[in-house]
């Protein structure tokens, strides 16, 4: 790890102020991704702005029929939250399936979403539920937020304060985990929402994506059979040591079927 300046602001305004005028400042949330990267000397921020001192960023509350999850809410807190469990159990289930207990007790929704790892689980949940990312500056629809491999619509001086999830009629998440890291090789989130059926896939490409063909098929006939024959093209998929592009493409269909079956 290289040397850096450490800041622990107690408000969002102070955090934003701390971000300005620095060489290469970085926000740190749970540190589960950022700290290992720094330890391996692959990242060298000049300043770390720790959001851990901002109480307002933690917790889940109702917000006009939606659930607003504070950026600093850990995966374990989301998994164990009564509101989430009763209103969007699929989201609690998704959070429960992230990494291991240590990671779930440190890692945060804001960190995961800002990091936009192609194999992370939350992006499927956000896009699948049609969530909104709330920042200190604006609101960004999940569909517009994830722009590529580790890339988001966030600007330099912008930080996530919460994520707002509309409550779906029903939803489910099916994940095929990487045997080593336990990230998603493929994860499919299926939801029946007021805006229609949404099918979001993580792990398979550089960034989370929706499968329009599946959404249409499910609108007519909400059953696993409706998606069983729908294949996504393998040539756009990620391929690595753990799963080839062809296998990932196959798993998208299988996990979509399972998620649909789990929605019931």
């Amino acid at each position, binding site marked *: *790890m290289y040397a850096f300046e450490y800041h622990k602001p107690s408000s969002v305004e102070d955090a934003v102020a701390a971000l300005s005028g620095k060489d290469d400042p970085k926000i740190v949330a749970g540190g589960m991704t950022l700290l290992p990267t720094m330890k391996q*000397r692959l990242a060298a921020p000049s300043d770390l702005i720790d959001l851990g001192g901002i109480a307002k960023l933690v917790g889940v509350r109702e917000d006009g029929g939606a659930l607003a999850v504070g950026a600093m809410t850990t995966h374990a807190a989301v998994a164990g939250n009564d509101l989430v469990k009763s209103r969007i159990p699929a989201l609690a289930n998704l959070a429960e399936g992230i990494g291991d207990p240590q990671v779930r007790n440190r890692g945060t929704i804001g960190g995961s979403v800002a990091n936009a790892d192609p194999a992370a689980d939350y992006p499927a949940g956000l896009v699948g539920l049609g969530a909104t990312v709330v920042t200190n500056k604006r609101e960004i629809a999940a569909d517009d937020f994830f722009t590529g491999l580790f890339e988001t619509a966030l600007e330099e001086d912008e930080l996530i304060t919460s994520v707002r999830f509309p409550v779906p009629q029903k939803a489910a998440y099916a994940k*095929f985990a*990487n*045997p*080593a*890291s336990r990230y998603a090789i493929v994860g499919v989130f299926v939801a029946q929402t007021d805006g229609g059926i949404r099918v979001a896939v993580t792990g398979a490409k550089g960034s989370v994506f929706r499968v329009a063909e599946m959404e249409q098929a499910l609108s007519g006939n909400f059953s696993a059979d409706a998606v069983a024959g729908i294949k996504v093209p393998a040539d756009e998929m990620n391929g690595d*040591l*753990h*799963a*080839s592009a062809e*296998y990932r493409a*196959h*798993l998208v269909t*299988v996990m979509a*079927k399972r998620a649909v079956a789990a929605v019931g």
Partner: protein
Amino acid sequence: MGQPLRRREDAALLRGQGHFIDDHAPPGCLHLVFLRSPLARGRITGLDCAAARALPGVVAVLTAADVRGLGRLPVNPIGGPVQPPPFPILTDDSVQALGQPVAAVVAETFSAALDALEQIDLDIEPLPTLLTPTAALAGDSLYPEVPGNLAVERHYSRGDARAAFDAAAVVVEAQICHPRLAPSSLEPRATLAQWDATAARLTLWSGTQTPHRLRSDMAAILGLEPEQVQAIAPDVGGAFGLKASLYPEDVVVAQAARQLGRPVKWVASRGEELLSGTHGRGAESRGTLALDREGRMLALEADFLFPLGYWMPFSGAVPAWNAARILPGPYAITDYSVTSRAVITNTAPLGIYRGAGRPEAALLLERLVEEAADQLGMDPLELRRRNLAPSQAGDAASGRDSSDYQALTTELAAQSDYETLRAEIGQRRNRGEKVGLGLSCYVEPSGQGWESARVSLLPDGCIQAATGSSAQGQGRETAFAQIVAQVFGVTPEQVEVLHGDTARTPAGIGALASRSTPIGGSALLLAARNSREQAGRQAAALLDCEPEAVLTDEAGLHSSDRDAHVSWAELARKSNDACESEIVYEAAGEAWGFGACLAVATIDQETGAARIERLIYLDDAGTLVNPLLAEGQIHGGIAQGLGEALLERLVYNEEGELLTGSLMDYALPRADDMPALQLGHHSTPSPCNPLGARGLGESGSIGAPPAILNALLDALKPGKLPILEPPLSSETLWRALRKEQE
């Protein structure tokens, strides 16, 4: 003895009060980090350390010049000759593997050392690599000392296998690419060295499995007398064969301490372990088995080709030798011919990872047995029972071990309710499920030779047991205390166990080859008996009775009528001679553990994901000193065996880059990967040692993989995998299922 006593080590270890190498920080301790080759093979065209040396906090940068002229690590020529490659310490001309140490930075702090590492300029001109054993056998010689890269070759044969094959009714074949594995102990390798210039003495703290050999090898390499070196293995966080040998890194640490006159510490990162620790398995194997119509095994041919990596640790030849010499395993096959070769490759070195050749042999053999059952249309358990060697009484005088393989298969059938289980699996299969049953029988030879022990009555009445056999987290203090306590008639708490420090223990071999209880434990047993006898004689004089009439218990020694007493402490103070015995015990023969395993596995037809539903493991380790510890060893071995079968694999790409450089890509088994285990023990005492113990530390990793893989291949039927390449990942199984459907 025989009690499931909890580990005395745990109170400290579980509270974080253990003392591992990284917990030791003598005043003024310096930190050492290595610059490692980023390429698998090449010629060094530039190495400039000036900028690194100039950084604040940097004390020295060592290069090949600092270690030139030092000695070589000996390689155990086990079972025949070995042509080892040179022992590289630091290199400045060529690199032969990714991760090979080129330079070492020594600095006041760890981060100063890392800063300096980035300032070293290293230029390497790449050369074509030889990564697999097949490539190395066909390629140019990497070292002139090792023509054709062939360092080890062993043949074992009996009878006329060829003739038997010609006459056989059925011949089956198997071909396996064994995955390259990382031993993955919780604590990585670590070494701390301190040089006392006045006394000209080196103290080495290391997580070694072999402190006494570390001491003598290090002394020879540095040109010191063994008396000038003290090696200490404090708490060791697991080893699994990874820490059996001295490494080039250890020499650099010691040399730096000697040059600089300050303590120097190196602690490997997980990445360094995956890159440069000794790996396991990695062989390519083939076999053929000949049988008659009734399923009698007539002859076996087997061939193993092991990759060795670019240098050989002390036991580098062991896997190739073990794989060959333990065939035909537990079966009565009269004619066989087995060849095993090992070749130098541009990869990390190969060591004696848990099992060390035995798992490779067991997997090949058990695949052949399963194939044969298939071809003959015979039940695989029945086929095994027809061919297992009959039980033998063994004999201490000639060192021939006893065995009773049939008893375990009989019990396996009973415990699994075999007929019913088979029928159920048949029904599930008829319903379209991909489910299968797999079996294995295995043997586990557990070491030859000697071990030492010293047992003494201390002035405070404690009994001290010092062993040359060390510990690496197996609970050895607990088990050794039980052995000695039984002889003295005291409680295990009254026995203090010393191990791991060459200055305080008699010379010994170490914690290897599943030998510590059979040989090290027996040495303690004999020394304890001698020492107890001395105590009896001396107490007799004080108690005024015959030595044979002296009784003992935790309070002390008594005359048989219990009228006269002397406490242990009193005896220690009052007797003229010490009650102490130090012995070197040579085992009469090699004790062979053995066992049988049954696994039931399913394959998810859509994803290919494997699941182990059930695993029954029966093992015969002879006399069990502590059944709880025994069970723990079996658990761990099975977990690593499951890893080998389903999850673990180190992968180099064609350029020789390591794709599995971290645990995010190298898949270790976790608790939720494990099925519930059904374990059982038999105790056929071995005549080869006075304890009657057999090895068990490696057993789980020998018997579990073949049973698990056989179960999955059974589930896959009629699908097949012509070449078995564990681990059977979900994609591998999915592809095999898809092929079958086509």
